[in-house]
């Protein structure tokens, strides 16, 4: 069991011995993570490592078999009503309605957190402006390109001003411009004080935006630290190795989803 503790900032999210089994298969094994305010925490791992299950447990979508998630110092599961508005979740899949206009999608998901009336209207504009879709606010989501849908997917999760944003592979299947835009926005959110948890298979993305990275395999954290610290686990001269090579060295080159 490894504890990943970041310096002295206030802990915003903490998992305690988080465990999930499906039959005899332990998918997440006694996971202990601490994420501090203002961090961009990257979670890496090959397919089947337990990243998505961990994310789902953090978001209260799956009940852990053992352990718990503390969010803002409280047991998240027991205080869901109070705390859910402080979390924003951007799923990997495009969780938007094609038959709704861009602003209607943002309205639908932002209103779930009790925001209404003029406040809701201004949050819709703010969210669409933030992801660069203000000019397309009246267009149906089904007419959008892949990158625009990804941006709308993000807009739907930020209107309620969460303290913690969870991005689950938000750049899958989009062009470099859209990817760059999203990464810049994540950095911008972080500068404005939002804590971010970020999962991706794109190592260069993680390296570019994450202040701390954890590599997960077989339900456990096998290494953690800054990009430089992770590289040093493998070689002394960090300029000669990429994060991807570190990842492959630590997790192996064998295919995981055979």
């Amino acid at each position: 069991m490894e504890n990943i503790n970041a310096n002295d900032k206030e802990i915003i999210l903490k998992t305690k011995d988080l465990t999930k089994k499906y039959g005899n298969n332990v998918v997440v094994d006694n996971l202990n993570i601490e994420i501090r305010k203002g961090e961009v925490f990257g979670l890496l791992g090959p397919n089947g490592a337990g990243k998505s299950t961990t994310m789902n447990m953090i978001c209260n979508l799956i009940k852990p078999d053992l352990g718990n998630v503390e969010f803002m110092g409280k047991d998240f599961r027991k205080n869901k009503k109070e705390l859910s508005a402080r979390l924003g979740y951007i799923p990997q899949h495009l969780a938007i309605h094609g038959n709704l206009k861009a602003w209607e999608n943002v309205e639908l998901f932002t209103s779930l957190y009790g925001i209404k009336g003029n406040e809701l209207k201004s949050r819709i504009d703010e969210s669409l402006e933030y992801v660069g879709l203000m000019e397309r606010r009246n267009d149906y989501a089904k007419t959008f390109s892949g990158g625009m849908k990804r941006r709308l997917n993000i807009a739907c999760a930020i209107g309620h001003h969460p303290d913690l944003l969870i991005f689950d592979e938000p750049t899958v299947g989009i062009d470099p411009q859209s990817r760059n835009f999203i990464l810049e926005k994540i950095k911008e959110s972080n500068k404005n004080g939002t804590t971010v948890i970020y999962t991706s298979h794109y190592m260069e993305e993680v390296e570019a935006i994450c202040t701390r990275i954890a590599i997960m395999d077989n339900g456990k954290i096998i290494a953690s630290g800054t990009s430089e610290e992770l590289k040093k686990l493998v070689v002394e001269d960090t300029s000669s190795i990429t994060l991807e090579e570190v990842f492959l060295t630590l997790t192996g080159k064998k295919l995981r989803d055979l």
Partner: protein
Amino acid sequence: MIRYLIKNNFKIMFRNGVNLLIYIIGPILISAVLASAFSALLESYESAGDFKAGYSIEEGSVLIPYMDALKEVAQDNGIYFTEYETGTPKEIIEEYGLGGFVEIKGDSYTVYESADEKVKGSTLEYLMTAFFNAIISGDTKDIKLSVMYPDHAPSVDSTDYYGIIYIAYFGWLSIICAAGLLSNEKKNRITERLCVSDLSSLKTYLSRLIPLVTSVLISLGISSLLNVFLLGVHWGNAALSALIVFVSILAASAFGLMLFELTQSMVAATFIAFAVVWTMGFIGGSFETYMLSSHPEALKNLMPIYHENRALVELSGMGHSDYAVGAIVYAGVLAVIFSVITVGSAEIKRRLR
């Protein structure tokens, strides 16, 4: 704020062109085709019009004091009585071309109908029954017989019948209208987003049920109006009919959402809904005239669609129906039961998840 969710879910359902086509055009097309194809199977309503009737009354009958009142009421309703003292009823009907004949002996009467004038005979029978009931209740002074057509006589034609029952039938398949929303929620895992926001099972359910009922009601409302203007369907008591259709759509929507909650599959929910509604319709008389249905009454009474159809058809034909209250109460109770099962099941899953 569930109202924004309801509003947007409604937009999703109502913007689906296929839904609109199914719910607005579907009932009109099907009922027009069936009404035309099977018009001969339904006895068409035929007004008796004004007609002459005869009567004979035995000396000393207790009904003698009421005969003036009977003739007056009959005349108000287009039946002109003449007394005949000699001859058998059959001979008198044939000789004088009467619509029927009433033979009164002591405290009882017999109605004779002409073989060629069944509707007039039935009307005369109805008048006598109503008049006798009025005598028994002691209310002969102000007898008003506003409905002249006997309850057992079918007074709807095939256009009315099919025009009405296919509105009811499409209402029971309301889950189709939610297919786009529910499929998209499942496919794109939008429900996960709803769960992250801690939306309760009840609110999630209402955010689907309310727009579903509203969109089906509006679509079928438009279809019904078009039915009236294009095909000339008569609804009788429109307000009561609308209430019956509304409660039935509520029950049907709750039923469809329950099937989706239990199966978690739009295909399975739609298939089961079709099978159940078809079975209910078959037993309860949606696909044949309920007047001719040979299924056991007890089995038919179990089918909510039977109560709805019968109430709506009787309201159309007679202006009133003893089935109206039962149809509303039955559908209302089912809506509550289905809702409790759906929300309960969702809540159990939510706690176990």
